[in-house]
């Protein structure tokens, strides 16, 4: 069992190392180092914060020690990444990239985890029911709408939802994380308002997610229902409900959880853009603004934070898997 956890931990470390290496190498591959070029361009434009920008250039020179040999730069870079010190934001100097990200992270984590969990649970259960022969027949008509829903990327569904539920029928706020007048603080009124604002973004992930999870689960259930142990369960005279839950769903859930872990990447990527569409104050919007202003340190910071957090989630799912499937955790005697 320990060997299994160690292996999955190794994978997580590898992912983090991979992400930081890409962040380090890619800018240096481009013909002209984009960071350096952006800084010089900002300095040459002059503008109010001219002196600040000169400090940024100096900071950048010192930090990356461009004269040092490449591998030394690389080691410094890795060390910074481990300490989650992504350097300074060019756009709103002297704020540290990490602080900006930390302010936005809770927004993303809350609404994303809630949405994904609901989508996975409801979608999986619905998919299982559709595949179950003794389930009510009308469920079969859900397949076509579910197919359409799963075909729409989250953020485009978001657009449609804003237009219908916010613009035309004005049930939900148009976007943002909370009403403009409010100051973010942890009291009930603010939290309720923030929740109201997070409903549409979450809904776009839930609706689209339900579609794809349901169809995925339906496929798994169809093959599981053909297994011998289902036939014996029925031969034992077990109630339909029990054969459905403890024999069919319980086994079809295994590959479904694996595909949840594998889909984490696309889910996170979609969520980033959902935030952009809704102007939701999560790391997605931060990334979007950083891209538009070519604020490299913030971009790399956000990318690293998302990859690391998704890595943690995948690691958690991997460790959870042997609990679901005893064959994995027990080494064959």
């Amino acid at each position, binding site marked *: 069992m320990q060997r299994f956890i160690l292996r999955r931990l190794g994978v997580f470390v590898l992912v983090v190392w991979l*992400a930081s290496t890409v962040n380090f190498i*890619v*800018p240096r591959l481009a013909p002209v180092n*984009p960071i350096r070029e952006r800084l010089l361009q900002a300095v040459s434009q002059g503008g109010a914060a001219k002196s600040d920008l000169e400090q940024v250039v100096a900071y950048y020179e010192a930090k990356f020690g461009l004269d040092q040999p490449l591998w030394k730069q690389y080691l410094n870079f890795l060390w910074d990444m481990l300490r989650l010190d992504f350097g300074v934001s060019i756009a709103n100097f002297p704020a540290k990239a990490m602080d900006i990200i930390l302010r936005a992270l809770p927004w993303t984590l809350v609404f994303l985890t809630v949405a994904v969990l609901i989508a996975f649970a409801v979608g999986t259960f619905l998919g299982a029911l559709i595949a179950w022969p003794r389930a009510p027949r009308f469920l079969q008509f859900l397949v076509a709408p579910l*197919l359409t829903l799963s075909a*729409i990327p989250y953020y485009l569904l978001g657009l449609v939802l804003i237009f219908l539920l916010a613009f035309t029928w004005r049930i939900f706020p*148009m976007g943002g994380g909370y009403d403009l007048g409010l100051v973010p603080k942890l009291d009930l009124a603010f939290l309720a308002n923030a929740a109201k604002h997070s409903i549409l973004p979450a809904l776009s992930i839930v609706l689209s997610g339900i579609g794809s999870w349901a169809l995925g689960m339906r496929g798994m259930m169809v093959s599981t229902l053909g297994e011998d142990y289902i036939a014996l369960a029925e031969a034992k005279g077990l109630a339909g409900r029990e054969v459905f839950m403890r024999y069919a769903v319980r086994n079809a859930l295994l590959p479904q959880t694996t595909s949840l872990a594998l889909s984490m990447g696309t889910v996170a990527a979609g969520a980033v853009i959902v935030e952009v569409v809704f102007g939701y104050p999560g790391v997605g919007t931060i990334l979007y603004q950083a891209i538009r202003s070519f604020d490299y340190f913030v*971009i790399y910071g*956000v990318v690293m934070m998302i990859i690391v957090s998704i*890595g943690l989630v995948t690691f958690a799912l991997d460790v959870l898997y042997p609990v679901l499937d005893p064959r994995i955790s027990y080494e064959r005697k």
Partner: protein
Amino acid sequence: MAARPARDISLIRRHPQLITGLAILLVLIVIGPVGSLFVDTKEAKVGAALPDLPPSARYPLGTDTYGRNLLPMLFLGTPQTIKIGLLAGAIGLGVGIILGFVAGYTGGIVDNIIRGAADILLTVPGLLLLVVIAVSIKGTVSVNMMAIVVSILAWMWPTRTIRAQVLTLREREFVRMAKLGGMKGAEIIVRELVPNLLPYLASSFVGAVASAILATIGLEALGLGPQNQPTLGMTIYWALYYTAVLRGLWWWWAPPIVIIVLTFMGLFLVSAGLDQIANPRLRRLT
């Protein structure tokens, strides 16, 4: 290769999903070039018409804040997005076939490395790595460059599915019987394995195209696509940029979404149909 017997034509007739899927995709591919014949594509340029006009007889899909006629924009944009998808999908499939076969056929350490890489990269949010890459490419990104960038992450699913199939086929007795018949190495792959893999190769290609288009639109929605090309993703980016939703200019972003959704549905139906051919036990969807 022996000509495909009649058996396959009746096979396709019995699979409505495959046919509807292919029909949808065909329409989407044809709509661009055919549409452009009936409409003056020069009007897709900035300032060709008054901005923010709602759909009318003159401008069936209205105009955007730049004053571009949205109908020709759509006719030009759709084929480009599909082209990116097909190009990236093809690259992804090519790499996937090579890696899938090498991993599945050789096994051992090589197999573990390739499988490990594919699985890890799948869990990592690929779009963000693409953001890092796209951001670093200064200057305008061309449609072909977009395809190459996106294809960097389109090879994982094909590698996984093809490797799994090669592993199961490799153990099958007819491969051993082929060896006993005097066949060796590459000939076995081509004459014995590939024909059984065709449905899987096709559905992996469809999967790769779908993930490529999803990634492309994602990048473009963040503004990292080809700035001067009216691809579907860029149209949505400009609509977002100019808060078209809040200003109620629904005709700016709704049509691209419809096209994108149709594309994904078409791709999904085709891959479901192909899986059905690959193993008939999967019951039909509708």
